[in-house]
């Protein structure tokens, strides 16, 4: 049933949060198909449900109803443990606030992602050349506090890719960066997509950032529009 050319498929995806006694719908039926190797931007104002979609696609939350398939795997009926497993194997996260572990050096941040990904192999030569392309190979033994925001975000990208995930999910990856560093990061994401065919889903509210993607979809009030 799964089409190997399609990496993400959602159908009628709904998510309702219960806040006190009130049901708050965050997603009201999202149907989205992402082909393998696409760089997709999801654009929308805050509260439009894009973060919720991001969490569900990343296996951090489960949908209330609807269907979602990632790399041929149906997420709808997964237990918490199965979703943890999915995060390990299929998803790499990049966050607005970098989210590096402050007590570990850059290289150890990457290694701990490897550890939790149950990836016991040594870093490959390809990964080392990726570190060079990201321009962080000489900063690997520094802790996050000694690095600029741009450097931290590039370490976070390397960390997200170390286990060769099926999809890279980036939530406002340039939200905390200045224009120059934003451009560097966006160029890198586009290069990764072009050179290694990495599927990338980027959430942003910045149309300039979205312009780097192949395709942009817009979200509003928990639905995809246009």
């Amino acid at each position, binding site marked *: 049933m799964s089409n190997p050319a399609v990496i993400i498929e959602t159908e009628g995806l709904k998510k309702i949060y219960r806040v006190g006694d009130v049901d708050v719908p965050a997603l009201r039926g999202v149907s989205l198909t992402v082909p393998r190797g696409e760089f997709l931007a999801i654009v929308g104002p805050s509260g439009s449900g894009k973060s919720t979609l991001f969490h569900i696609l990343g296996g*951090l939350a489960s949908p209330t109803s609807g269907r979602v398939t990632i790399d041929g795997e149906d997420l709808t009926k997964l237990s918490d443990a199965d979703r943890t497993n999915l995060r390990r194997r299929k998803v790499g996260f990049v*966050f607005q606030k970098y*989210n590096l572990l402050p007590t*570990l050096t850059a290289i150890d941040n990457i290694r*701990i992602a490897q*550890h939790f990904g149950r990836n016991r192999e040594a870093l490959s030569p390809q990964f080392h050349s990726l570190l060079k392309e990201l321009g962080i190979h000489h900063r690997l033994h520094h802790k996050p506090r000694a690095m600029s925001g741009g450097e931290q975000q590039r370490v976070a990208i390397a960390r997200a890719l170390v286990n060769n995930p099926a999809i890279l999910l980036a939530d406002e990856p340039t939200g905390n960066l200045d224009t120059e560093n934003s451009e560097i990061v966006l160029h890198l994401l586009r290069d990764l997509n072009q050179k290694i065919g990495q599927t990338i889903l980027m959430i942003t509210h910045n149309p300039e950032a979205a312009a780097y993607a192949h395709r942009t979809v817009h979200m509003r009030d928990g639905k995809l529009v246009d």
Partner: protein
Amino acid sequence: MINRLVLENLKHRKLRTILSALSIGFQVTMILTVVGISRGMLEDSVSRARGVGADIWIKPPGASAISLSNASMPEKMIDYFRKQDHVTAAAGTLVVAIGGISTVTGIDLEQFISLSGPFKYLSGGPFTGPDDLIIDEWYANQSKKKVGDTVSILNHDYRVCGIVEAGKLARLFVPLRTLQDLTGSTGKISQAYLKLDRPENTTSVIDSLKVNLADYTILSIEEFVSMFNVNNIPGLQAFIYVIIGLSIVIGFLVVGLTMYTSVLERTREIGILKALGASPPDVLTIIVRETLLLAFAGWLAGIALTFAANALINGLIRANLQSVIVTGWWPIALLIAVVASLLGAIYPGLRAARQDAIEALAYE
């Protein structure tokens, strides 16, 4: 890799880590010092009992073997003991409590020397009057007393006439007669020591004494000193258990609080770990390893502190308390520190493990 994370986490908040480890250290020291003092006091009692050089120890009916007895044995019994076969010397003593666990011992000096041999005087000499006092070197050092000084015991002033080497029977000796009169036990003693021609005759002499003195406690010195163990001191075992219980509570609270604040502070990091694919058991493992490392560091600190406590006790108040290092209790103390710490880590650990990843990532 997890070990590096654990180590870096502990290093990240150095002061908190050091204070927590020290608290666990004090918990460990508390246990080891109480055990060390119990053991030290008992060993000292044993060596002083052996130091008398007697073969048989006799106590009148009633009272347990090593608690202080009432003086209920007629002094004349000494003559009776002396007449028994194989007995070469007999001496009676009167032991009176003078507050706390300290005692003063009344002896008939000649009688005692005939059994135990002469005292080794470091200064001064034997009793010359009824109000003379012989003290041992530990007591002299601790109370800073020298020959000629006055010491008040049970509202009676004594003059220090001699300072002797420690290790024979008691720390404070006064003339038997004086102590008997002052305590209203004229003509009475609380225990007797016998010396035999040959130690091999001990059993047969005890057997024949028991024929006429069925109610008396009559023991060989080795049997007597074997009673100096933790189980025979009323309340001591219970006291040690109470200290262990308190230590566990302290360890539990300290580690509980430390790990709780540490988990709260790292809410966001726990979210990151989960996004990276850490399962709840993975997160729990990190907390448990941090706790174990804290407990181990605390244990090492505790052993170091115990040596310090030991040196202080023996250096400053050796006449009242003696302490020894009891290495056999080190593993037990480690076990107690680990158990208490793990108990303290249960709630913070589970809280971290169950932390919702999305909420944790949104945590500022």
